């Protein structure tokens, strides 16, 4: 089962993990969580603004999950990506992959986040106390 969610509101990592864990007999589950960090700006970060192209973002995440799901024989794959204004330490993205074996779950998870970072149409803008700028791509 593949689940893709793109929304501005936050998510509860424990709830999402537990929900998937109890819903399947597969024993291996891997999660990746990406959060807002204040490491790039010279001035303190006020917020991180994430813009996206809704139709295409959904399509890219869905196709990416589908590819990983089949290639690594997953039982569950969840991708949540937020947009809008986020604060330091807010969660941005959650990827959960579940499989019968850990190697498949790890590989699928890494593939999804790597592919997402260079292909999914989301853009980050850092708003600091002094200025605002678009984040450059870091594959």
């Amino acid at each position, binding site marked *: 089962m593949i689940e893709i969610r793109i929304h501005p509101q936050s998510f509860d990592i424990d709830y999402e993990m537990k929900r998937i864990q109890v819903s399947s007999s597969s024993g291996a589950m891997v999660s990746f969580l*990406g959060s807002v960090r204040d490491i790039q700006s010279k001035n303190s970060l006020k917020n991180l603004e*994430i*813009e*996206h*192209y809704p*139709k*295409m*973002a959904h*399509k*890219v995440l869905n196709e990416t999950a589908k590819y990983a799901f089949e290639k690594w024989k997953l039982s569950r794959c969840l991708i949540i*990506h937020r947009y809008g204004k986020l604060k330091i330490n807010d969660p*941005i*993205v959650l990827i959960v992959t579940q499989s019968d074996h850990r190697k498949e779950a790890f590989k699928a998870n890494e593939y999804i*986040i790597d592919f*997402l*970072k*260079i*292909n*999914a*149409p*989301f*853009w*980050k*803008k850092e708003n600091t106390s002094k200025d605002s700028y*678009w*984040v*450059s*791509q*870091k594959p």
Partner: protein
Amino acid sequence: MKLIYFAKVREILGKSEEIIEVPSEIKTIQNLIDFLISHDPSYKAALEDKDFFVACDEELVDMDFIIKRTSEIAIFPPVTGG
């Protein structure tokens, strides 16, 4: 033809979308970009460094891709999600 813009490209152009009439000789994405740049200087500022991607109907395409007149064409900078 419907054009939509995101992130830095949208900010430089000062609009998120527009419908434009393009001459019939505009066949490829490259033709379209050249047409936009010659048409208005703000496109030059947004597109001349070639640091952008183009998607037709939500699929990334190359500069020699033949445009369908009914497509939604999106122009945006390199993505930075995740």
